């Protein structure tokens, strides 16, 4: 391989990441006193932590060749389940466990519909999106649960963290996102399950013929994603010190966008964790930096959309040119 070809390959692989670094440099140059500070970066990691968790587990589903539209409403539902249980004086961990179980069951439901009943992931998870959303409204009676119903420790958790220096701490929510990243990294890179799931996403028919338990792997991916959505929903309740039946709904589109941006960072255009993380950080840094630059919030939305399209479009063009 010639040097120029190697360079082209590197650019194709890390172009989006370089774009991210350029965005960071731009904001740094414009707001030197506030943007590139430890406090601001810890802020950003905390702000993207919830999206990060949901996007990382969504990556798993997308590695298997499926996707899940129901993650946002599952996040709302699981957060709501915990809040309702706390309101009924169920113990802290009892409610957390129940919420995560609900996420797991939701994942099983999605997985069975898609992997065993043969429904398209789009249709099945569009249906469950509506079901989970309705359940969140039903269990809460449509109300926001806040105040004393939410244990103080839940709200305090998102404000706490590991103290680094005077007044600076590594936020707990960031730590959860990092833990999920490490876990997903191990699952996808270092387990037979992860390698087989890649094979399923790459060529389902060939995997079936090779004896890979395709349906079971897809089901497991959905279950992990359901649990991920539940964890994200609980993080959201902690961050807002309240539970609202629709508060997680916006996560789904951003999660899918992050995975798609991340897919530009793979030679074959496959979902990958590092890429998803970059996608999540791009979205987070854009919101943070553009707010600091006082860019109109509607212009921010347009810019974010344009950057997502640009990243995916250029990656597609460079793939075609190969």
């Amino acid at each position, binding site marked *: 391989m010639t040097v120029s070809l190697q360079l082209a390959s590197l*650019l194709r692989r890390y*172009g*989006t990441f*370089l*774009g991210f670094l*350029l*965005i960071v440099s*731009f904001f740094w140059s*414009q707001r030197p006193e*506030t943007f590139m*500070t430890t*406090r*601001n970066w810890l*802020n950003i990691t*905390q*702000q993207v932590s*919830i999206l990060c968790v949901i996007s990382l587990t969504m990556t798993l589903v997308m590695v298997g060749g499926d996707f899940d539209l129901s993650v946002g409403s599952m996040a709302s539902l699981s957060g709501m389940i915990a809040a309702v249980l706390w309101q009924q004086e169920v113990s802290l961990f009892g409610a957390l466990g129940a919420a995560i179980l609900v996420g797991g069951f939701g994942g099983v439901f999605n997985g069975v519909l898609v992997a065993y009943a043969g429904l398209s992931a789009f249709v099945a998870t569009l249906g469950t999106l509506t079901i989970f959303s309705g359940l969140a*409204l039903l269990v*809460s*009676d*449509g*109300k*926001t649960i*806040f*105040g004393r119903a939410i244990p103080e420790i839940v*709200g305090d958790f*998102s*404000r706490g963290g590991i103290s680094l220096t005077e007044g600076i701490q590594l936020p707990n929510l960031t730590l959860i996102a990092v833990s999920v990243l490490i876990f997903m990294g191990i699952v996808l890179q270092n387990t037979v399950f992860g390698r087989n799931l890649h094979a399923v996403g790459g060529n389902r028919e060939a995997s079936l013929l090779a004896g890979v338990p395709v349906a079971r792997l897809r089901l497991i991916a959905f279950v992990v994603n359901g649990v991920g959505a539940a964890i994200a929903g609980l993080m*959201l309740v902690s*961050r*807002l*010190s*309240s539970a*609202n*039946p*629709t*508060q997680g709904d*916006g996560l789904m589109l951003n999660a899918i966008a992050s995975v798609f941006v991340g897919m530009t960072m793979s030679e074959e255009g496959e979902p990958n964790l590092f890429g998803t993380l970059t996608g999540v950080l791009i979205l987070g840094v854009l*919101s*943070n930096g*553009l*707010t*600091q*630059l*006082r*860019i*109109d*919030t*509607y*212009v921010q*939305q*347009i*810019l974010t959309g*344009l*950057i997502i399209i*640009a*990243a995916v479009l*250029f*990656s597609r063009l*460079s793939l075609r040119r190969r």
Partner: protein
Amino acid sequence: MRQNLFIFTGILLLALPQFLFAQSRTLAVLTPFLAQPGTQLMVEGFEAAAKSKGWQVDVIDTSGDVAALVSRMEDVALQKVDAMVINVDPSQIRNGLLAAKDAGIPVFGMDSGADPLLTANVTSNGYVMAAETATYVVDQLNGTGNVVMFIFEPYPPVQKRGAIAESIFNNEPDIKIIEKITPSFDRGPLEGARNAMEAVLTANPTKGSIQAIWAAWDDPALGAEQAIRDAGREDEDIVIVGIDATEQARDRIAARGNLKATVAQDFNGIANTVANTVEQYLKSGSVSRSQIYVSAKLVTADDL
């Protein structure tokens, strides 16, 4: 590399005019509800008041996303603005309020709920507004009839309205609440209310089976009125009332159709009172009251 250049240039081009024209900022207005007419009126009123006081104002809207609003409050706190003004339920943005508190930035509620972390909140009295329209319905019905209610429980200020109207109707022995509906927001509350009302009309086909519709805000009142017109049942004299007195509601009331009354929150008055309260705080470091009510007024066709 072209990809990166494209991104970089895009940001540069779109960002440049913004900070060419506005270098220093003093106040930030943050809300997830800027698409709501009432919020728009308040934000515009506040911007006008702030301009007259020589303040710079940044308006940040997160399009319904409350978690994003908390993040933006943290960003703004880092920017050390002089004050934040919010239009959102404060119980849902506790982390944002604490970030402001840590940064020593006062936060003022503009038609928010009361919260100890707010320096002050300026609002209309939701209980009084709901009581105004509910008693109007009772009076129009001479204390007898079937009422459909459009409520919205997730947002506490609107939930309050429903609670008080319900108690007033329940206190009248001959008034019966036949439906309590939370309109779907999928295509906006107006469309959601219209669809729900069509179903209620279908379920109650007999003329005179519904005497009134009480809505916790104007959009569902307008949607219900459209459904009644579409069903050709406008001659049944069903009394509809809303709250907020939006332009569209005023038009319909002036047309003397089924929509008979609404309550005008004095959005401009709220905005001006917030601006004056902020000014008072910035000058003296304190406010006279932390919960300030601005009067609202019942609007009927005779007022238009």
